[in-house]
């Protein structure tokens, strides 16, 4: 999901609404592309917390890619996201997802640790 412009008091409510139908779908990885998100306020953070919580409840993960400096600064101030879930670029995220997929493949081929 790509976020653009400002995630503030107003647009956070819109994001919550847009995510609603998504929660009915089966998936275990939610990626927020923040390349074009220039601003986030506490109401926007709240929406991201809710999304992370919902993903956690379904044993899934939430990742953030291409966070811009102004948004990263706010993330850092409030420790809004797990450091390990932030990726500087789509290429970095792809490399991570590839390694996850390799592990999953290994586990299905009999590694008891990943079964």
């Amino acid at each position: 999901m790509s976020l653009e412009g400002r995630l503030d008091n107003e647009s956070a409510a819109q994001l919550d609404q847009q995510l609603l139908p998504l929660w009915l779908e089966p998936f275990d990885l939610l990626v927020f592309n923040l390349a074009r998100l220039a601003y986030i306020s506490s109401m926007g953070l709240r929406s991201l917390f809710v999304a992370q919580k919902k993903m956690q409840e379904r044993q899934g993960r939430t990742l953030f890619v291409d966070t811009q400096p102004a948004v990263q600064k706010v993330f850092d101030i409030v420790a809004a996201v797990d450091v390990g879930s932030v990726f500087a670029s789509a290429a970095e995220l792809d490399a991570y997802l590839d390694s996850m997929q390799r592990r999953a493949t290994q586990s299905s081929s009999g590694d008891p640790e990943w079964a």
Partner: protein
Amino acid sequence: MVISLRLTGDPAEIPGALDALESWLGAAGLSAEDLGEWRLLAEEVLTNIVHHGSPPRCDEAIRIDGLRSGDGVELRVADRGRPFDPCAAAPPDLSAPPEERCGGGLGVHLMRSLADEMAYAYRDGRNILTLRKSSPSASCSQGQAQPEVATDDPL
């Protein structure tokens, strides 16, 4: 440079007030980074007032006064809502994992972190919150344009 804005306490007025404030700060020469941080500070203050302070709707339920001087900006926000001192509010628990957080207290924490100074007083039935932040002009921080001088001319 000064700006003065009056709000009735209607949440729908907040985006317009933030736009006006940002235009004023832009005209005052602030960098894009400082503009964003001031907008965020103001949004957190106003959202808190409207959603938690519940000021009675009137012509001047909230009054914002901005002053640009030297290398800094001072913003004073007065409101007629319930007394609330954000300087004394308990900090949020930042150690809990993100998926266990509810987002409470983040606005005040952002205000405290982004402002250089934050002062609160309650006078004449009004909360008065003053925020200060050093915000040099963008043109200064990028280095001032020098007039071209042909010093390399061998003649």
